[in-house]
Every structure is written in C-alpha cells, then in structure tokens.
C-alpha cells in the first residue's frame, strides 16, 4: 500500500522526515511506569512505542535452571499483534526469538550477575508500536527497567543504529530507511566503559563505511545515554523531593 519514495535523502542531505544524516529521531523516556514490575520503563523513539519491565532478583522456576554462582538473566522481546502493519500472530516468531537472545546478551555484560546467585532476573519487552530500530529502543528501555528495579549495574546500556541510505552513512534509521536503505548496523554500548555489547549488521558496506557507521552509532548511543540519565535523575530527584 505504501508507495516507494523517490529519494530517501535529498541533495542537501535532508532525510524523508527532515533530519540531517547524524540526527536522532525524537526520543521520550519514562521510568517506573508500571506498579507491579520491580522496574519498568517506557520509550518513544521515533514512532516506536515500547514498554519494558523487569522482575528480579526472584526465585527461579523451574528450579533446575538456577545457576549456582550467578543470577539467571532471561529476556523476552515481544511485539503486540497490533504494533505492525499486518497483524502479527502473538506466538513468538523466529525473529523475536533471535532478538530476545541478542538483547539479553547486550544487557548481561552490564549487570553484576554474581551478586544474586540462584535467582532470576526476567526482562520483558513489549513493542506496542514498531518503527525502524525496535531492538535498539528496546535495549535502551530495558536497561532502564533493570536500573529502576535496583539491580546493581556497571553501566547503563544504550543502543542506537547507524546505516547507509543511498550513498550516505546516517544515524538512527526509521522504518522506510531500514527497509529501502542499503545497510543497517544496530549497536549497543556501555558508554562509560566504551564497550560494545550488541552489534549486528545487514546490507552491504565496505570495511571503511562500516567503520564510519560504527562510530556514528556510538555517537548516537552517547546522546541517548544522556537522555536516559536525565530521566533517571529526574525520577529519583522527584522521589527524593517527595520523601523530604
């Protein structure tokens, strides 16, 4: 039903939604949005609307899954049936299974897993509306949910993609750029440690373009990280003020 746009980026380097190549989409983050979850966060990143909740440390069921020397991290990335153009069956797709794995592996390096042996930390991500870059926005929100649950962390993971659209390396691809562009490089970062915890890529890039994309994605991550930290600070300052 969508007609293919003629150009994803014009001569002046302006993209379909008016952004410059190194510009992020609008981002809005909230933490502590759910009353039952131990920690939670909500993110709007472009048209993505994503909710993340964390439960833990808590008992592991079934028990034989418990790890003797560390916490068990479990993660589920899931899309609401109404989050995409064509209704998505609620049963987990192969894509959702893979993304659940890479999101878990992007968070795990940041968490002091050894502090809570024999317990589980469950992170649930629900994509309520999907635009390009759901996995990155999910990681950004999930890391905040874990922080909001009071789990000790080395750093707060943040994620952003870069990619290639026509001949330009651009930051933070939206849906049409993701689908019609020539490469997408989602990346998650522990910004204080300069450590990449998620890296995927599909499309076609030279090694040099890839290097540029990685650097641009890291820059994007750092900008989003600032928003993450403001959000957390605002919440805990609010709480402190309320407590005083």
């Amino acid at each position, binding site marked *: 039903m969508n007609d293919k746009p003629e150009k994803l980026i014009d001569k002046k380097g302006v993209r379909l939604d008016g952004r410059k190549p190194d510009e992020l989409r609008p981002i809005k983050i909230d933490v502590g949005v759910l009353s039952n979850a131990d920690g939670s966060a909500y993110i709007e990143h472009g048209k993505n609307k994503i909710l993340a909740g964390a*439960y833990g440390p808590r008992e592991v069921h079934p028990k034989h899954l418990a790890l003797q020397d560390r916490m068990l991290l479990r993660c589920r990335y899931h899309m*609401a049936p109404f989050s995409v153009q064509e209704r998505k069956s609620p049963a987990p797709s192969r894509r959702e299974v893979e993304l659940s794995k890479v999101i878990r592996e992007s968070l795990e390096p940041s968490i002091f897993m050894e502090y809570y042996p024999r317990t589980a930390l469950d992170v649930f991500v629900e994509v309520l509306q999907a635009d390009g870059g759901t996995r990155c926005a999910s990681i950004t929100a999930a890391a905040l949910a874990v922080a909001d649950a009071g789990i000790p962390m080395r750093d707060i993971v943040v994620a952003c993609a870069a990619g290639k659209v026509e001949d330009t390396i651009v930051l933070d691809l939206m849906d049409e750029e993701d689908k019609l562009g020539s490469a997408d490089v989602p990346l998650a970062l522990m910004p204080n440690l300069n450590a990449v915890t998620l890296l995927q890529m599909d499309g076609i890039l030279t090694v040099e373009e890839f290097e540029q994309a990685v650097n641009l994605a890291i820059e994007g991550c750092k900008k989003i990280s600032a928003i993450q930290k403001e959000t957390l600070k605002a919440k805990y300052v609010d709480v402190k003020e309320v407590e005083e």
Partner: protein
Amino acid sequence: MSSVITRLKQKQIAQLIEKGKRLDGRELTDYREITIEQGIIERAEGSARVLLGKTEVMAGTKVELGKPFPDTPNDGVLTVNAELVPLASPTFEPGPPGENSIELARIVDRGIRESKAIDTEKLCIEPGKKVFVIFVDVYVLNHDGNLIDASALAATAALLNTKMSKYQIEEGEVKLTSGYTQLPMKKHPITVTFAKIGNKLVVDPWLEEEQVMDARISMAFDDDDNICAIQKGGNGYFTPEQIQEAAKTAKEKAKQLRKKLDW
C-alpha cells in the same frame, strides 16, 4: 502470599465490607478512577488504553480481508484475543495462552458478539467469499484487579476508534483504495464485574479484593439495558438473590460507564 496473612487480610477486608466499606475508601458499588484514551497506536486500525485505578489494558484492532464462516456468508468476522503480558504481573508467564487469558478473550468476545455491537453485515464485500475480518487484541499491561471490565471497555473503545480501508472491486479482485470509513457500530457493550466477599458483593474488585474473594460474576449490557453475556468465575457460589441484585446494580453501572466512551 502465605495463607495466614491471606486469612487475616480476608477477615479485615470482609469485616470492612460487612460494614459497607472498602480498604481503598470506595463504596461497595463504586468503580475506581477510569481513564480512556483512544487512538494511541497509529499503526493499528483502532486502539484504546484504559486505566482502571492501576489496572492498565490496551486494545488494538486490525482489519484484514478474509473469508466469512460458511454458516454466516454475509457477515464479517470478529476475532478476539487476549494476552496476559508477563510484565503486567509476577504471576503471568510467557508462553501460549492459558485458561485465564482464553476465558478473558471469550468473555470480551461474547459481550461484543451477543450485543451485536458491530454491524457485521456491512463488513461483507462479496457474500460467501470476501469479508472484512476484525481482530481485537486485548493486551493487559498492568494487573491490579478486574481485568474483565477493563478489557471489555478497552475493546469497545478500540472498536469505536476503528477505521477500515475503502475498497473497489476491479475485475473480481478487491482493491483497497485511499481513504477510510469508520467501523459500523450498532451497540456499545459494557461489562460490570462483582466480587463476592463474605456475603456481600462489591463492584470493580481490585487485586487485594480478588485475592480474598469467593467468586466473581461479570455481566455485559447493551445500550438498551439488556443483559447480553454473563460469566461466573472462581471457586465459590452465589445465591439466586445475589444474582438478581447483581443484575440490577450492573444495569445502572453499565449506563454510567458507557457515558465515558466517545463516539
């Protein structure tokens, strides 16, 4: 919760309710504060978010082309699904739908279907061959009790907010064209749930009340004050008198709730 605390709390809640009071200060027939937002998911053909106190439910609709059922060749198809999303409660687990989410979906479905809320004949494109299929997906995001009323309300609100593509038939093939029409709605079903605690009925039980209730009963009403669906749940029972009392109260509550919908 340990059963000792449960019993103490049950006693406390029941004693209060015996006196016509509730832990959160409501009257026995009061609902918690209700917020309804419609149209929040642009990708969905219709959507609504309902807050019932801290209980939060989202409903989204999708409209697709499909085949009618053989015994109703002139009617569009309604499909309701409910997900108890695991971030909504420590007791919800990921995995295929269990009996609670199946029951929830079927209660919501019956309210819509039996009240004839949707004018399904207007969803027919070609009798016996092509109709619009309406998917209603109920998504429970935070569970603080009374998921049934919140879900039914979110579903009705999302349907009221649903747009369908216009279409043309060209050489026997259905082509969607630009522009939308509103989903044709005839009724606005509202479901009202009671918990039985001790020998009293309370409207809109929150989680603490559900944990101590004996049984619950849910009643859906259409715009003409008719009952169109009922479901008793839980391991307890109702007396015939309590059932009649519930029906009368629910009729009034449904009228009040319906006013909160925009259409």
